């Protein structure tokens, strides 16, 4: 490098400083004064985006000094973006999380504690205690359930009627796994579509099966609650349905990501699908109203189904406008107008008054959810515990390994062993 004269060095410095100043200027602005801009992000389907937008617009109309920018995407993309933004210090103010990610984000100090707002600017008295419990990590309230949901089999009755397969829909009616397999096999044999979307990919449905066998996905201590043998038995049970088209083929199953537009039933590859009833409005939006809901099968008295917060809302710890974010959160949870707009787009509303209001005068999709919850009310158990840190990695590894199973790249027992090994590593770290 050559030598630099004092004057030119000064010139360089001035150039640098002006650039820095210009950059700093972008981030300036005094919080607390004038209009506040919030960023609110969530994942979901089109229907959820539409109603959430409408609710946010209503909020802005009532609070002209708060501007809300919204962003939404599919589940995978949402968390990819969120982690990048949060790491870069450009995180949102209000965000949506699920059971697999709440613990993770709370333990990484991304979320604000909501205890100081609860009961004041954030009304929670109409929200059942078990739902609130689901938003706690280590005894502190980090999120509030955006709805209540339970597991459900959503099905297209035309295929089942054509195949002469019976699905229990009446309140209190139930079926066994053998009856389930029989019905799915009939549909698969009769028509062009598989009986049901292969449900072995999602750890969520395995959790139900485990509950029916007096086990759990995670122990309350945050350790793995099942063995290689459990998972082997479960995956083999599903695998037995594959040759007869009781469940969807591998190239359909591999695309499952929890989104409605990729789901087997919406792409017309399967006649039914296991899901959470919080996505029913999405199914109705994408498929049409000709869908019915049934409980998951069980061989024992215990249904394995539970009342869960499908998704919850949390406020970012780094948010500069926590008060405004809490205000928006409170509006989404407790305002009758917001409740009407949101309907059952994130499961049935957590606020019991709003829930009654939504269920009384609701649209076809929201009504289907309410009716189902009502019909299954005796069978839905109390909420499962929150998932521990590392569970989102477990969820991903579970699906990835299942891909290897359905494409016959690895035996079921070996795959199950790998899942357990990977999971123990993820949970331990």
């Amino acid at each position, binding site marked *: 490098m050559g030598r630099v004269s004092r004057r*030119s060095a000064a010139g360089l410095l001035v*150039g*640098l400083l002006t650039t820095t100043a210009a950059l700093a200027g972008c981030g300036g602005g005094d919080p607390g004064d004038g209009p506040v801009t919030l960023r609110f992000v969530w994942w979901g389907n089109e229907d959820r985006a539409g109603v959430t937008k409408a609710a946010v617009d209503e909020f802005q109309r009532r609070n002209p000094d708060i501007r809300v920018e919204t962003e939404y995407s*599919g589940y995978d993309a949402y*968390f990819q973006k969120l982690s*990048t933004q949060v790491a870069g210090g450009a995180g949102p103010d209000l965000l949506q999380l699920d059971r697999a990610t709440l613990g993770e984000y709370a333990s990484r100090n991304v979320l604000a504690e909501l205890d100081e707002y609860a009961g004041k600017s954030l009304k929670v008295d109409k929200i059942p205690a078990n739902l609130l419990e689901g938003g706690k990590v280590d005894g502190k309230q980090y999120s509030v359930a955006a709805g209540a949901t339970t597991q459900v089999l959503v099905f297209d009755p035309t295929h089942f009627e054509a195949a002469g397969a019976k699905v229990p829909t009446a309140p209190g009616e139930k079926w066994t796994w053998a009856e389930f397999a029989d019905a799915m096999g009939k549909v698969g044999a009769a028509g062009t579509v598989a009986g049901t979307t292969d449900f072995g990919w999602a750890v969520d449905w395995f959790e139900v099966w485990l509950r029916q066998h007096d086990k759990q996905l995670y122990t309350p201590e945050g350790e793995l609650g099942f063995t290689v043998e459990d998972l082997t038995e479960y995956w083999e049970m599903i695998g037995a349905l594959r040759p007869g088209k009781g469940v969807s083929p591998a190239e359909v199953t591999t695309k499952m990501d929890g989104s409605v537009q990729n789901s087997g039933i919406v792409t017309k590859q399967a006649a039914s699908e296991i899901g959470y009833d919080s996505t029913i409005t999405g199914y109705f939006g994408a498929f049409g109203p000709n869908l019915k809901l049934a409980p998951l099968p069980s061989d024992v008295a215990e249904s394995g189904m539970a009342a869960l917060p499908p998704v919850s809302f949390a406020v970012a710890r780094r948010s500069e406008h926590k008060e405004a974010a809490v205000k928006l959160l409170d509006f989404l949870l407790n305002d009758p107008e917001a409740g009407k707009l949101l309907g059952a787009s994130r499961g049935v509303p957590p606020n019991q008054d709003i829930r009654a209001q939504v269920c009384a005068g609701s649209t076809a999709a929201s009504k289907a959810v309410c009716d189902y919850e009502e019909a299954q009310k005796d069978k839905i158990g109390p909420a499962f515990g929150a998932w521990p840190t590392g569970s989102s990695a477990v969820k991903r590894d579970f699906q*990835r390994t299942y*891909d290897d199973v359905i494409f016959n790249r690895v035996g079921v027992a070996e795959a199950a062993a790998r899942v357990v090994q990977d999971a123990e590593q993820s949970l331990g770290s």
Partner: protein
Amino acid sequence: MTQSVLTRPPARDDPPPTPSRGRRRRGQGVAYLFLSPWIVGAVLLTIGPMAASLYLSFTDYDLFDAPDWVGVDNYVTMFTGDERFWHAAWTTTKYVLFSVPLKLALALAVALLLNRPRRGVGLYRSAFYAPSLLGASVSVALAWRALFSTDGTVDSALAWLGIDTGGWVDQPQYALLTLVALAAWQFGAPMVIFLAGLKQVPRELYEAAAIDGAGPARRFFSVTLPMLSPVILFNLVLETINAFQAFTGAFVVSSGRGGPSDSTLLYPLYLYQRGFTDFRMGYASAMAWVLLVVVALLTALVFRSSKRWVFYAGEDR
């Protein structure tokens, strides 16, 4: 050009302090001033982040909390305890081995076609170059997914012909091939460079060869290829480096997962997953440095081998 001003060694016959020296110094200062946008960019956007990632590669860093120094743990884990790392490295190797030669061959073939004078050749050149302009964009990868998915365009067309393969992007044995095809389709950039190279080949050589009785094939192998070999080397190095860093196609086609069954888990995609979905940025940084070293070594290897096959005009052979 500017570099030579910067690093110019003091000329041996520089006289001791003279009035002119001050002026030269000022000239250097001005050079720095004009360079400052580049210097600022290079330091802030390239050298700084690289240094940071080198540091992070020796830490356990989850993106949110401060990094913890762990020494070479990340590197040890990578080489000894991570099956997916080796799988991703192997997948990328396959991808590079297939996509680079295919892309270069296509680029050269099309360049040869377009090198002939004919009407509207400018239009053809633009048309063939267009995919490369679009190539970096996500939209093309999305279109690719739609083309090759189950019941997509290709699947439907093949089914109509009685061939039932299912969607290629949904099956582990074909998914990587669709990515190779996507890369090969974007042959525009090397094609343009080949075309420029072809224009440089002296016409007399062809004429002389023709007079000596060389047919088109002979002319291609004995005149065109040797004369073009420096350009081939350039394209080979560039495309190899690019192929090792391929990310967009794999990310979009597999929705960021690298599936089905990890068949499209290219190294950069796995690196991304480690960093941004598993929150192991230290590990991801270590992976980035391993990639950098491997690519640098391979590039050096290609350059060394070039002595055997690259012919520079004016050399004796």
